[in-house]
């Protein structure tokens, strides 16, 4: 049985929580000064909203902005190092909503925490506002608004244009077409694709990830195939030629198979807008520059 005890004025909410509750604002004395963030997305958000100077430790997989490389690491989703977290003497720990064991331990140590839940694209702005009010960062509202505005701008620019049916692949076995992992009809990647003016070829499959067989790719016949890679996977030379065996697929026939690399595709944070813009530029090159 885990106890979700939190300190009096901290809010343990996910992105769909009471974002408006922070409107009262925090006095400088109340603001957390030693923040530990285990989630790459929240780390980016904290720095983007101007609270980066108050972050004292980050998770193992946080790489942006470059300043975080100098900060100590305390583990991540599967292996949070409680001792190191406590040693940092934090007054706020931003962690995953699913890390219930860690939450229990922090409660026992009377350390407030903020539970972040991975959501979809609209939740990015909501999370920014929620975290912003929790840490008292003045730049949060502007950041969230800017993100929403840029996304709306992309939507407007692609509105009315025909949507190419797109297969979004985020992983497969190197050098072959086995174990193709594609984004299904729900989740963060799907939302970015739709915002960028694409039609998800797997829109009818309500899962975040779908393992595609070659038969499925041929049957669904996408017009565009986009492979996304995180930046460390991108170090290897692209091997898109493996798709050539499926020459009957419209995307292959019309040479619309692309590789997009960068951490902005895998971290649902402020840079999601950049990712969406890159998708839009790939799908509708005539509209963007």
């Amino acid at each position: 049985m885990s106890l979700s005890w939190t300190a009096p004025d901290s809010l343990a909410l996910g992105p769909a929580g009471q974002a408006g509750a922070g409107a009262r604002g925090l006095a400088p004395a109340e603001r957390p000064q030693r923040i530990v963030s285990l989630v790459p997305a929240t780390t980016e958000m904290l720095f983007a909203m101007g609270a980066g100077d108050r972050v004292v430790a980050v998770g193992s997989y946080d790489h942006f902005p470059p300043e975080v490389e100098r900060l100590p690491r305390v583990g991540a989703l599967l292996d949070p190092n409680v001792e190191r977290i406590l040693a940092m003497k934090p007054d706020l720990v931003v962690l995953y909503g699913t890390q219930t064991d860690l939450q229990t331990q922090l409660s026992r140590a009377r350390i407030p925490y903020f539970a972040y839940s991975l959501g979809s694209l609209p939740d990015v702005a909501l999370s920014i506002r929620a975290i912003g009010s929790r840490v008292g960062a003045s730049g949060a509202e502007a950041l969230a608004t800017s993100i929403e505005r840029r996304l709306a701008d992309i939507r407007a620019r692609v509105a009315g244009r025909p949507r190419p049916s797109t297969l979004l692949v985020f992983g497969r076995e190197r050098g072959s077409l086995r174990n193709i992992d594609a984004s299904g009809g729900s989740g963060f990647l799907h939302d970015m694709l739709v915002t960028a003016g694409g039609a998800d070829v797997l829109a009818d499959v309500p899962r975040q990830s779908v393992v595609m067989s070659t038969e499925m790719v041929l049957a669904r016949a996408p017009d565009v195939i986009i492979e996304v890679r995180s930046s460390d996977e991108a170090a290897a030379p692209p091997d898109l030629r493996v798709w050539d065996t499926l020459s009957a697929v419209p995307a292959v026939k019309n040479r619309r198979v692309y590789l997009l690399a960068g951490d902005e595709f895998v971290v649902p944070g402020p840079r999601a807008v950049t990712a969406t813009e890159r998708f839009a530029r790939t799908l509708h090159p005539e509209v963007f520059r």
Partner: protein
Amino acid sequence: MSRWSPLREPTEISVEKAAASPRSGVAGVAPRLALTLTVFLAVTVVVCLLAPLIGSTPVHLSRVFDRGIPFAENVDAQVFFIARLPRVVAAAIVGSGLALSGVVFQALLRNPLASPDTLGVSAGASLGAVLAITFHADVTLAGVPAVPLAGFAGSVGALAIVYVLAAARRRGTPGTALLLAGIAISALLAAIGRFIQYFADFTDTFRSVQWLMGSLDVGGYAPILAALVPLTVALAGFATLPRVLDLLSIGPESAATRGVDIVRAERVALVSASLSTGAAVALGGPVLFVGIIVPHIVRLIVGPEHRLVLPASALFGASFLVVCDLVARTILAPVELPVGIVTAILGGPFFLWLLFRRVL
């Protein structure tokens, strides 16, 4: 025909056989051999011909073979020749390879629970594949990508370790010692694999787990042709084994009195079965249960003599896995199950039934 069963000692069965049919020998076996194998072959051929026609996408046979449509635009033909046919062929190869090595390991180790995974060859292949996935290996040899190559290399490595252990005893290794050594090697290699997975990036770990569930969607013929090379060598080895395996099942002492060079026979069996396993696991991942279940099913049908069991297992293993893969790719369309899940779901209960049918 005496019934082989894991609950009976092999010696009981051979004594029974000698008593029951004094004329059994080459003359008695040959016509039965021909008939049985013909039936198994016919079933396998039918299954392999029908399987590419069935799937989650409707395919029109007339369009598949229509020469008028250029192949590069013929979706039906590409589904048939690129997506489905290599899968069926791969399933047949993996199924027969695993079944054959299962038969041989069970005889070699004199243990009905032995399987291609027992001696660590499968764990070696898995370790090789996990390493290739985690370290983003980028080699391609003769059209075969890095992961199957590394898998095969891993299986050969594991075989080398087991072979050295087996060769260390000059009189041939009693089944139990080899079995225990194999279990230890298997456990060690699996532990190393898990260690690597734990420290790997989450994405790589996920990808390794996917590979470990098995996938026959090879999408091309290069990996299949590559797997046929070690498999052919293995088949050459298997061809010399039927009589030897019959005798080994009884015990090395009886085999020795009949002039069988036990040491050499064990080594041929070990190497052939390991090559066959290595090729199969490198091609399709470690598909569970085929190597342990198929030999038992086949023995229920044709009896314990390896002249029948070996070829029949190859054929039945091929059909079994083709059918399992067919189920895996159609039952929850458009989502596909990993074939290893289907074989385990079918194999597990069957095995329990097999073990307990004498009790019930």
